[in-house]
């Protein structure tokens, strides 16, 4: 049995930022466990630029953004084990992991940060009818084939879902010489960032078909085509609008799901909307000393925000280890009227700083107002020219405001159109 003050599960941007921040805040013995052969997580295959604008104030590629944190990590005495898979986080914060070199590892930790990231929603979850031929893959899998392995996953491509990875892959495949015929999006709006729609689709003349989905795949061995159809306002295919599109590849970019198998196995209840653990303002879960940050907690738009959130968790873990973290009564947050969820789900009444509430809306709103209330009283309101589900929003609640709220009060955030 090894002993560490802090074990971080995952060495992507979230895990690295949490570990570094914990170190900076006085934690001595830290271990980062990463299942891939290198640190960096999914950033390693994201060779496009657009990372770091908020955090570093400059535009970096994924590997460059990760590289800066890897360098910082190397300059500390934080221990790292790559090619190591965590199998279990027990209720006493004992972490069980395996790798080729050490075999089975047991690590007793004072605190644990969960930073496992997220995965893409697969085809099965969509129940697209048709054959089980090859050539149907998630955009992220295609991205790995192109950028890491150096192979073309297809030549004529239809992309379903306008999530950011799908948009990025539309451009990437085009640059590699493939014909990207279209991006279909079930919803009447895109799930991706506006800048990606402009830079990845518009600049290359790739059509984005909104309110359109793939209803069937065709092909015996390899994909030969798909049938697309328009959908109505209940998202059901409209008969008569079917169209056959020949293609050898269908890429799916239909949503990301936090990878919470470990969290669930350790008994943590997940938020129904975020699919991540429920946390306080320091990202501490309902298990004392277990923190969660990054895409395992809620799917973020930008890695810069993952870094910021993970630093909060790193500070929280450090405070916990030193016995300085606030505990006790909490107030709870709830998204209503157009606000789908809020992270954090609870705030300690005696919290020691202002708290940012992050949330997403459920539809597109123009010239809307975000209103935060508690016990019938407005805490604050903020005007927004545009709100859309693809972009995460936040409001800041002052420490002085929180301090005056009664224990167990509910803070609601809503949209007024």
């Amino acid at each position: 049995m090894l002993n560490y003050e802090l074990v971080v599960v995952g060495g992507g941007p979230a895990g690295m930022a949490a570990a570094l921040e914990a170190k900076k805040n006085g934690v001595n013995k830290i271990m980062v466990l990463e299942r891939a052969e290198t640190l960096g997580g999914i950033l390693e295959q994201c060779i496009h630029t657009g990372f770091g604008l908020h955090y570093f104030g400059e535009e970096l590629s994924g590997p460059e953004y990760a590289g800066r944190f890897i360098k910082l990590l190397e300059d500390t005495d934080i221990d790292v084990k790559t090619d190591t898979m965590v199998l279990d986080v027990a209720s006493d914060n004992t972490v069980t992991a395996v790798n080729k070199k050490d075999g089975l590892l047991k690590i007793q930790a004072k605190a644990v940060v969960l930073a496992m990231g997220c995965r893409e929603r697969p085809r099965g979850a969509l129940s697209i009818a048709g054959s089980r031929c090859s050539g149907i893959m998630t955009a992220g899998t295609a991205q790995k084939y192109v950028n890491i392995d150096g192979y073309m996953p297809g030549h004529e491509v239809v992309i379903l879902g306008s999530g950011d990875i799908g948009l990025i892959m539309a451009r990437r495949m085009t640059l590699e010489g493939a014909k990207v015929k279209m991006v279909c999006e079930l919803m009447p709006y895109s799930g991706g960032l506006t800048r990606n729609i402009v830079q990845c689709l518009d600049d290359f003349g790739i059509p984005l078909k909104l309110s359109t989905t793939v209803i069937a795949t065709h092909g015996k061995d390899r994909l030969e085509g798909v049938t697309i159809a328009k959908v109505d306002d209940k998202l059901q295919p409209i008969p008569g609008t079917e169209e056959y599109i020949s293609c050898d590849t269908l890429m799916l970019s239909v949503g990301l799901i936090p990878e919470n198998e470990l969290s669930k196995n350790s008994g943590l209840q997940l938020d129904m909307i975020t699919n991540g653990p429920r946390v306080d303002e320091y990202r501490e879960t309902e298990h004392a000393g277990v923190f969660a940050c990054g895409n395992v907690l809620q799917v973020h738009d930008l890695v810069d925000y993952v870094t910021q959130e993970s630093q909060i968790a790193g500070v929280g873990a450090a405070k916990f280890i030193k016995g300085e973290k606030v505990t006790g009564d909490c107030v709870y947050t709830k998204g209503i009227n157009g606000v789908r969820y809020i992270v954090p789900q609870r705030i300690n009444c005696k919290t020691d700083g202002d708290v940012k509430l992050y949330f997403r809306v459920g539809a597109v709103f123009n010239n809307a107002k975000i209103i935060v209330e508690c016990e019938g009283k407005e805490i604050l309101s903020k005007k927004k020219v545009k709100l859309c589900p693809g972009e995460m929003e936040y409001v800041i609640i002052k420490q002085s405001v929180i301090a005056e709220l009664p224990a167990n009060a509910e803070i609601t955030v809503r949209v007024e159109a």
Partner: protein
Amino acid sequence: MTYDVAIVGAGVVGGLIARELSRFNIKVALLEKLNDVAMGTTKANSAIVHGGFDAQNGTLKAKLNVEGTALMPVVCEKLSVPFKKNGSVVVAFSEKEMEHIKVLYERGIKNGVPELSIIDQAELRRREPNISDEAVGALLSESAGIVCPYELTIAAVENAVTNGVELIRNCEVKSIAENADGYVLNTTAGEINAKYIINAAGNFSDELAKMVGDDSIELVPRKGEYYVLDKSVGNLATHTIFQCPNEMGKGILVTPTVDGNLLIGPTALNIEDKDDTTTTPEGLRDALQKALKSVPVVSIRNAITSFAGVRAHPVNDDFIIGWCEKSANFINVAGVESPGLSSAPAIAIFVREILEEKLALTEKENYTDTRETPVRFRHLSDEERAELISKNPAYGRIVCRCETITEGEIIDAIRAPGGARDVDGVKRRTRAGMGRCQGGFCGSKVVEILARELGVPMSEITKFGGDSKIIYERTK
């Protein structure tokens, strides 16, 4: 190459016949037209071992089902294949249907089905808390079970190959000529000579029989569509839950699988194209709606995948097993639809007995009837895991996160006798790629390992043989 016996078709029937014949001092070839075993009806069915009350008295289906179900736990034990005797219930939703339940009960007793009883609403609810409020009672068949049909086939073939059977893949029989020595099979893998042919070609057994002039086999391809639900809802049903059967089959069932998922289906639609394993929006909707009748809490939110299988429904409604009337040394094993999986262990013995009418069989001295237990890392204790990794570090690298499958298990699956040659083959042998992410993360790693083990470039690895390429040329 000359064989005593060529078995055509490496599904569960052909695979178990191959294993049965591997006990004897004869040369046996198992011919499979695709890149792997268990690729037809075997890989896409309900994975149920039936009690045996459904088939009419006196039919081959009735006899072989009851015998096969009794043999199944023994065969699975020998082959180290998980089998669970979970029991089945046929649920009645009205007093009229209860009358039919009684008919099934009587038929089952006559067929010799053990552990059969009729239970009332209270007992049904006690056993299946999620059953619909509309259910009034059920036929309980406690000898019924669940097994993974492709795992059983893979294990049977591995055992057969270990005992000397030659598995020849990508070997489609195009025509058959007869001469003084027996048969010459013209195949996509070259000419193969055999004294006896066993026709276990599933949906194509009618066409194979025609190659020796036998056009008596009449099959109707019947498609069934299914949903597979996540393991987190695998406990919504304990027994295999049937509804009252109709003329198209046993209706939509809701059942746990032996791997812990929940399976719903199959629909039943007669089709033209035997290779049509496409799912349809209507079919999947139908499967779900009917499943909701039995277990109303089933939700499509938990679906991880869907699939369709095609079964060979014989027009005469019974298995067609016996010597071909048009060709001397040709045995048909055709029309093996449900309860084909349940019957397969008994069919193997039955076919061997038929073969013995003409071919004298002497037992091998060094025959082994067991398959080495494959490593299942996910089922081991921490101590066992530590020991395993110290012996072979490849078991220390997890490739499939959702199902906790190690690189060592994937290598084993490729190196095993009759081992995996493609991504789906690895998936069926190890479960890598069968979890929630459906291979999103591990798919490319499996391609890498296959390429390395088989000594070919990654671009030559397929999903399931043929043209099912996964990636193409190098990027520029």
